[in-house]
């Protein structure tokens, strides 16, 4: 039964996709292309480029796409829900546990979270690096990133207008 297989596979991806974004792609590729053959290699690389031109995280985009190819609309819906379910369950309990722990052992909890701050910020910087590696195709893109950086620091509330403006600039110059 294809739906059942889709659910199991995407539960597994949701449960073992550690590290987020591009760190997860090899796992998704192994499941979809090698283990289940729902996608060919060509379709998978097409999926990656579709994911780059649509909103949303690649984990969701690839689940929806592979689910659709393997099982139509219901396949895409089940795959997308299945990839989110482990997060919801794990975090529901973890959030409670950590809150309770923080009340009981405030000092340790604060110490751990504060100690992890440099790593958390480094991970965001790493996301910038990974994204830039694909997005910087020439001097124009560098300048656009720099301009967006400056505009954001001037007005933090203008994120959406900044993205739209540079998208339009892209249409004009590329």
């Amino acid at each position: 039964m294809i739906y059942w297989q889709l659910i199991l596979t995407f539960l597994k991806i949701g449960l073992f996709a550690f590290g987020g974004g591009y760190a997860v792609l090899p796992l998704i590729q192994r499941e979809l292309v090698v283990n289940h053959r729902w996608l060919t290699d060509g379709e998978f690389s097409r999926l990656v480029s579709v994911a780059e031109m649509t909103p949303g995280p690649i984990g969701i985009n690839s689940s929806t796409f592979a689910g659709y190819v393997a099982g139509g609309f219901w396949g895409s819906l089940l795959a997308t829900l299945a990839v989110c379910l482990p997060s919801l369950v794990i975090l529901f309990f973890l959030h409670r546990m950590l809150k309770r722990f923080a009340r009981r052992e405030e000092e340790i909890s604060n110490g751990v979270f504060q100690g992890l701050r440099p790593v958390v910020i480094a991970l965001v910087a790493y996301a910038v690096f990974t994204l830039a590696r694909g997005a910087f195709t020439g001097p124009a893109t560098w300048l656009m990133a720099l301009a967006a950086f400056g505009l954001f620091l001037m007005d933090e509330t203008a994120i959406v207008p900044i993205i739209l403006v540079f998208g339009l600039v892209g249409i004009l110059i590329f």
Partner: protein
Amino acid sequence: MENRIRLNGWHFFLAFFKIGGFTIGGGYAMLPLVREMVVRRKGWISEERFLELLTIAQGTPGVMMVNLSTLIGLELGGLRVALLAVSGAILPSFLSILLIASVLSRFMGNPAVLAFFRGAVPAVVGIIGGVVLQLAWRHLRRPESILAALAALGLLIGLGVNPILVILAALLLIGLKLKLASGGGR
């Protein structure tokens, strides 16, 4: 649950739907938008707590953006709000892929769409870069924190270590440090 707020769930869903729609270039593109909404504009969560939630989201399996939406929902209103936040956040992604896979396959090669993304993604890089600068400026004030962040970045970029291993290694070091600080521990 001291910081629970009476939220209109539907508004919360719409806010995350909008954020999901502008998450261009991968999950982390959501970060500036979420932070702007829940920390800066509405003041629902302090930046310190936001960083804690981000820590949990990065350290647990699954799609980072789903994790972060779940945690913010749980923090602000429990499971119902978490479900609304997650569905709002993933719906734009789901709908656009579905459209492309079913009827809009021609959209794929459309030069205007490609050009839009070629312009928008560098802007997203700049915006997340701005967030990194702000977070580092406010929260990495001590030299050892800066060194730790640079070391983590070196492992991630230079050696290609999986993020989760970097978090685990940091947890180990923090554990040792806390144990030493408490004089050998219990």
